[in-house]
């Protein structure tokens, strides 16, 4: 969807036919995340409304997604659901899900052809599902979603986001406002920890006029943190938001749930002081520990001209999905 630059064609299709839109992790941004028909990301780490819509759908139009295990989660594709599968790669058709109508081609071309042949519809199908959207608690504590929503508000979606892999990746997928296609850059398929910061450096070279923000965690960041030297050498003004819970958070959470709290090899005590680390590379930094300082911290980061590291001290027991 994003590679084929088919967002406008998608918007026309769903607005004409009043079709709700759900996304895989890689598809985020194909349609603006605040579009009234956008329900969120599906899958094992997806949003409730999106998964609910997927389960209830009698017709699923898949554009460019491969619907691998993580995207489907617990959802079973039954015979009641008809599937139109559009993909440029014929090898994707029928690989993970059976298809009723397979279409091989470039998404932009195929969707524009479909748009020529459809009529207007009256009612939005998933209005009820949308109304059930979960409200996040405000308990005075600093949660990752507070930080991500504050970033969304202050920047109004005017940024390119890169993420690493882990809990912060899912927090970012759920809570950041992604306005334009191609501005949410993440390692969706392989799930490569360490991707976020180098990807941000590359993105900044590719799009120097855009603000580029890497969302990372302490585990992922340390996999390729030597790239701080590249940031320093080339003076790449990227912003890094580092959620530090001193954990390999995804696996820690898994052990909590599946191994009745037998935590092994998921506590990252031994982490450096990230503020001193940033300073060692001549990079400006700030540590955020309370909700009171949130607005100010994001505003300082936003107005700073050079590379900047914002460390967000995060509760290890903060769940991926609230």
């Amino acid at each position, binding site marked *: 969807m994003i590679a084929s630059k088919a967002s406008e064609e998608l918007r026309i299709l769903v607005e004409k036919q009043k079709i709700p839109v759900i996304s895989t992790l890689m598809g985020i941004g194909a349609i603006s995340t605040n579009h009234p028909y956008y329900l969120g990301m599906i899958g094992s780490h997806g949003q409730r409304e999106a998964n609910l819509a997927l389960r209830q759908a009698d017709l699923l139009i898949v554009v460019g997604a491969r619907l691998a295990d993580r995207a489907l989660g617990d959802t079973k594709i039954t015979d009641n659901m008809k599937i139109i599968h*559009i993909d440029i790669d014929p090898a994707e058709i029928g690989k993970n899900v059976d298809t009723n109508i397979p279409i091989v081609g470039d998404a932009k071309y195929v969707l524009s052809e479909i748009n020529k042949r459809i009529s207007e519809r009256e009612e939005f199908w998933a209005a009820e599902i949308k109304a059930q959207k979960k409200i996040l608690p405000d308990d005075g504590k600093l949660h990752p979603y507070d930080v991500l929503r504050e970033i969304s508000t202050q920047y109004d979606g005017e940024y390119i986001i890169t993420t690493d892999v882990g809990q912060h990746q899912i927090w970012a997928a759920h809570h950041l406002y992604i306005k334009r296609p191609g501005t949410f850059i993440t390692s969706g398929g*392989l799930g490569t920890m360490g991707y976020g910061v180098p990807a941000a450096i590359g993105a900044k070279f590719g799009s120097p006029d855009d603000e580029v923000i890497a969302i990372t965690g302490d585990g992922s960041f340390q996999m390729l943190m030597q790239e701080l030297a590249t940031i320093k050498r080339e003076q790449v003004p990227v912003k890094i938001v580092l959620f530090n819970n001193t954990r390999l958070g995804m696996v820690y959470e898994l052990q909590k749930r599946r191994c009745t709290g037998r935590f092994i090899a998921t506590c990252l005590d031994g982490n450096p002081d990230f503020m001193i680390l940033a300073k060692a590379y001549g990079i400006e930094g700030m540590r955020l520990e309370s909700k009171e300082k949130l607005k100010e911290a994001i505003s300082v980061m936003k107005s700073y001209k050079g590379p900047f590291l914002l460390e967000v001290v995060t509760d290890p027991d903060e769940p991926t999905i609230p």
Partner: protein
Amino acid sequence: MKVKMTVKMTVARAMVEVLKSEGVEIIFGIPGAAIYPFYDALYSSDIKHVLVRTEQAAVHEASGYARTTGKVGVCVATSGPGATNLITGIATAYMDSVPIVAITGQVNSSLIGKDVFQEVDITGATAPFTKHNYLVKDPKKIVRVLKEAFYIASTGRRGPVLVDVPIDVQMQEIEFEIPREIEIPGYKPREKGILYK
């Protein structure tokens, strides 16, 4: 009357000329002994080189660049550990269909298979997660191969392509000529839709 103009140059220089003809403005990498002729040719070009601190980051940076510009991201590494350090980055790009051309140096072609210093079979290692890859043993083929690499990486379902060039090949002199069109038998990506019944 058409006049065919060719110029003599080294393979390394020809590689840089192809990058220029593909509109490459920036590449990410780390030099090493098996890729030094290419870097030497790069010295006298306008292409910006970003020196990373580990090769995996070079692929990710090329990926971030490709995903914001829609162009092919280019990364470079030397033979052996330089090449193997690229692997995670290449697999990452493959899974997310990101157009990348990865250029690696290789040991002297007469020594391939003899376990010499910093030798690794990188085309063998990356075969499952590159869209295509090449080991260039014939200096005359370098221009066509690199052009094909860009074409394959950026058309159809996009993805990473690796081009492995032995150091002696990089130093050979060739008649340089840029091919106008790329025609690869068996590779015809379908952009216009087809409905299977």
